[in-house]
């Protein structure tokens, strides 16, 4: 049975009438066109489907859309419109962090969540912060360096 659900998606109030047990990743991709949310493993292991739910990074393949009712959701599409998101994306581009790009939306969400909690992370802290995000291409080093670059370039913006 369909249920009418309301939540904010990338800053806008949206409603959808659907099966509340559909996975949030499917609703975001199919009903709202947020195809930056990628599906890798479908079981919480790879981080490609990472989004922000009430400001916290979660994997959207593990959440039924009914649990999003009344909540605040930001995907890579919304994050890339913000000052902080733009800064991370530019640092990834300049730092050579991207190869095939499949893991990158999730990595940007992870980078954002690392830097919001810890504006000046060490290499180990960055590696721990992205440890739930799998990348098959880069070997991670340039991603880690690019997150450091985003920390340095952003400076005080990460503190607010």
């Amino acid at each position, binding site marked *: 049975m369909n249920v009418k659900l309301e939540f904010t998606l990338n800053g806008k109030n949206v409603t959808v009438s659907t099966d509340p047990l*559909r996975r949030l990743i*499917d609703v975001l991709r199919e009903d709202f066109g947020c195809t930056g949310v990628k599906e890798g493993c479908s079981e919480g292991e790879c981080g490609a489907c990472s989004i922000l739910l009430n400001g916290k990074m*979660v*994997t959207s*393949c593990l*959440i*039924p859309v009914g649990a999003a009712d009344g909540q605040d959701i930001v995907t890579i599409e919304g994050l890339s419109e913000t000052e902080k998101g733009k800064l991370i994306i530019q640092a990834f581009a300049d730092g050579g962090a991207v190869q095939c790009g499949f893991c990158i939306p999730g990595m940007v969400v992870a980078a954002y969540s690392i830097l919001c909690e810890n504006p000046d992370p060490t290499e180990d802290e960055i590696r721990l912060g992205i440890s*739930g995000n799998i990348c098959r291409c880069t070997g991670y080093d340039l991603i880690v360096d690019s997150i450091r670059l985003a920390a340095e370039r952003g400076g005080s913006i990460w503190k607010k």
Partner: protein
Amino acid sequence: MEEVRAYIPETLKEALEIRSRTDCIPLAGGSDLMVSNKRTTGVAPSFDKPVLIIRNLKELKEISVNGKGECVIGAGCTSAEIAQSSVVPWHLRQAASRMGAVALRNSATIAGNIANASPKGDTPGPLYLLDARVRLTSLAGEREVLVSDFIVKFKTIDLHPDELITAVVVPLSERNFDYIFWHKVGTRKANAISKLTLSQAIKFDGRIVSDYRLSATATGAKTNRSREVEKLIIGKEITPALIEQVIDAFDEVISPRAMPEFRREATRRMIRRFLSVASERPENRVIDTFDGFHVTGQPEPVF
């Protein structure tokens, strides 16, 4: 009329009313249920009963200390929230802070970890060690049961159909322990769950051990704690021979299936390490470094 697939209550009372009249599956973080019931891309997971979505119930989100000096953790608190709380006992904070990776810790709840009743679950180790209880609430009232009794056996819990876990109550006895130990031993993969964890705590009265506790996860069909083993050392002075006796007795208690030799050896070494260092009365309460294994709290080399 089409079947109801899920209920999304706004309050705990509403959730309990639904529990009282419907046979349904509570879903909190979803990190176990959405995996075990998943089908395929674009297709909703299939559940054999309606689902009660309790992820956002505010009543289940608080962490406080009650009048009896016990830490009361709302059933819906996530690993991240527990790891960050200064009132949560040390062993439990360690376990919560090392569950999965960041995104998992923002979803996984403590009640879900207990109710999943998996020997691989990380929080039951500290919860058994500290004699923690689950608070079970229905419209008819409330009862509290030791976590170690609530988890009856592999994948089986003592939950009545009209109840929800509403809180986990942890005595703050660990404040009295002189030395504490928690360690997770496993592969380097952040989200791999079948890792062995060992929790230990000890208190001395002069040279005599007045309390000793030991629990292990991922070493059998259930989380392991044995009061018989603990009694071997309580009331005595620690000697190398006594340590070996405790080690051998606990080795009889555990029955690891995957990598059994490795898990047995790691367990033996961690008990030996903790008891021998504690008997020397170092200044630091937390006994953590361990030859040949990573240091607790330090990031493991992730990749």
